[in-house]
């Protein structure tokens, strides 16, 4: 069953020109739409949030488009294909996390903020220091998230276009980056939102078709599909894969090996469930709707679409395990990230592969565009306008800075795409989640719910969470020191040939998230600062939605 002859050569799959044609037509069509809906000179509000003019339903679909990134689609499908049950655990964490956003964050954020995460965090605290801190961590989280998306682009490019040389791959990544910058420059948030909506619909439709197709091959019997994945793994040429084939269906294949991996898994789970509501580009999406009721509706839609999609990836992942097989996936450029495209090729040959990879490219484009808007809004609005210039800038100046920031961030995206190509992107995204949950979420929740919270608490929590999370990542096995694998002759760590790790876990969340919360508490109780009237204003507005319309009309 698992015969994929083109893979044997280790080269490309399908017809590269068809892949390029489908991708190019997607870019042309969406760029056309972006120009139609959103071209022209923009106010800051239009550029950052599309003038808050989207409906809850539209925004919910766009959130799904934003969230169902390359990590969700390629990464989770790959993780399920290779690790079975343990891969499925990712999608559960990614989904349940939305309840934090729904119940505690989305509506209150919409009611108290306007453009960026820092709007809410600095609302009743000292503007300048808190904005600088919030902007720093927003940029850091966006950077990690971006790295994951661009890593996905790198792997996908080499798989689909047959470019395996370092230089050729980098050129393609640069092209992806340039197209993304064009979306952002021309369309701002409005154009980007439409790209995300189109992409979400395409992605969910295509995945649903593949799911039915896979299930059809197994007589619409889920249990039979699982058996197929186990059987294929048993037929593997790799002894280790054969030995663990039965474990695909039970927990522990990846994370049950040692006590360290078990604790690592708890750390990952914590980061996943608490990270979503601290992701700046997700939070900014709540500002694209006019009211808290629409923000609620956005999250409802997002939960239904994202949850439904993850149920589909369960079938896609096991389908890739059964029909493509772990050996072919491991040999493909991009490894686990290639599982879903390879499955498409197995099912529908070159045309379906072209469509799926076109959508996967579009996914990366749309998500990176969203991240770029968030990063440029953070830079121009929080850092340049409020923190550096004390609010004394014209809208033209702010927009000019925002556009340059978008270009700068786009260049960073391209450079970042050249690193970490072989890392599983779901895993890289998990690091972004850990930083978001450590540095952003404590301050968001404290400022919305804890009266006593103040500037020192915010600064300690943001910087403490941020620095501890990043430090632990740098000294974790992710960056250095994983033993060299016999099969590839390379260490799975980012850096080869050095070992300076002392932190045992891959994911820092278990330490850095509680630390972020603790420092927020400690900083607050050791400082007397309390702004009674701003607190009243923030709390009343957050719950009643008072003044939210005025802020938009402004």
């Amino acid at each position, binding site marked *: 069953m698992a015969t994929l002859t083109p893979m044997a050569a280790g080269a490309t799959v399908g017809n590269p020109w068809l892949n390029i044609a489908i991708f190019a037509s997607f870019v042309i069509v969406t760029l056309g739409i972006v120009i139609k809906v959103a071209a022209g000179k923009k106010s800051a509000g239009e550029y950052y949030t599309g003038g808050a003019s989207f409906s809850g339903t539209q925004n919910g679909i766009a959130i799904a488009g934003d969230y169902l990134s390359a990590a969700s689609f390629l990464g989770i499908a790959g993780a399920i294909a290779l690790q079975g049950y343990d891969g499925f655990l990712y999608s559960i964490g990614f989904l349940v996390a939305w309840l934090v956003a729904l119940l505690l964050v989305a509506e209150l954020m919409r009611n108290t903020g306007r453009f960026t995460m820092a709007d809410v965090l600095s609302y009743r605290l000292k503007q300048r220091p808190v904005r600088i801190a919030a902007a720093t961590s927003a940029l850091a989280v966006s950077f990690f998230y971006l790295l994951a998306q661009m890593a996905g682009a790198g792997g996908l490019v080499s798989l689909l276009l047959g470019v395996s040389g370092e230089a050729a791959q980098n050129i393609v990544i640069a092209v992806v980056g340039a197209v993304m910058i064009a979306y952002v420059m021309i369309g701002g948030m409005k154009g980007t939102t439409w790209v995300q909506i189109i992409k979400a619909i395409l992605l969910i439709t295509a995945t649903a078709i593949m799911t039915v197709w896979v299930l059809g091959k197994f007589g619409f019997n889920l249990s039979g599909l699982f058996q197929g994945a186990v059987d294929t793994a048993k037929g593997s040429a790799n002894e280790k894969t054969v030995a663990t084939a039965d474990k695909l269906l039970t927990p522990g294949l990846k994370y049950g090996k040692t006590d360290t991996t078990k604790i690592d898994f708890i750390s990952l789970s914590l980061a996943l469930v608490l990270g979503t509501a601290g992701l700046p580009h997700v939070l900014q999406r709540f500002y694209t709707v006019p009211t808290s009721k629409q923000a609620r509706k956005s999250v409802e839609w997002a*939960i239904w679409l994202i949850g439904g999609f993850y149920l589909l990836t369960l079938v896609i992942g096991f389908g890739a395990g059964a029909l493509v097989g772990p050996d072919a996936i491991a040999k493909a450029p991009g490894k686990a990230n290639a599982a879903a495209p390879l499955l498409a090729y197995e099912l529908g040959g070159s045309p379906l592969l072209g469509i799926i990879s076109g959508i996967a490219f579009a996914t990366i484009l749309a998500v990176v565009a969203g991240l770029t808007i968030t990063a440029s809004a953070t830079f121009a609005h929080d850092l340049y306008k409020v923190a550096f210039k004390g609010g004394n800038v014209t809208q033209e100046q702010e927009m000019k800075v925002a556009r340059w920031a978008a270009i700068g961030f786009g260049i960073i995206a391209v450079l970042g795409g050249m690193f970490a190509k072989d890392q599983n992107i779901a895993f890289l995204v998990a690091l972004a989640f850990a930083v978001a949950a450590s540095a952003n979420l404590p301050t968001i929740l404290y400022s919305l719910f804890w009266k006593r919270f103040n500037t020192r608490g915010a600064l300690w929590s943001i910087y403490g969470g941020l620095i501890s999370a990043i430090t632990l990542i740098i000294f974790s096995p992710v960056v250095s020191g994983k033993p060299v694998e016999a099969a590839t002759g390379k260490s799975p760590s980012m850096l080869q040939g050095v070992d300076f790790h002392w932190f045992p876990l891959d994911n820092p969340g278990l330490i850095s998230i509680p630390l972020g919360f603790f420092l927020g508490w400690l900083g607050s109780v050791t400082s007397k600062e309390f702004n009674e009237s701003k607190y009243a204003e923030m709390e009343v507005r957050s719950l009643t939605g008072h003044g939210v319309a005025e802020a938009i009309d402004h």
Partner: protein
Amino acid sequence: MSHEARDYTDNADPYLALQQTQEFGDLRRKFRGFVFPMTAFFLAWYFLYVLLSIFAPDFMGQKVFGNINIGLLMGLGQFVTTFAITMIYSRWASREFDPRADALGAKLDGIKEH
């Protein structure tokens, strides 16, 4: 936000006044009384699932029918509860919370006009 925020500080008193009313206290209690226990519930249920997966793989691996085991059913159960909480919250918010919140917001407009 800073510009808007500054405009409002001059009128900060109405907010303070409203915050100290009985009705606003009730609204806050009602909101927190719903979202906090719900959050505690879904986090507890999620971590129960995570911890069982990692520390009781044999239990989670017990087959219920075919290749479908307890762990998989509990995992799908996480999807079910997430969808259910979303629906319950949405219904609660539009029936119980929104009318009260809107009424208080309207009242604030009344205070500010005086």
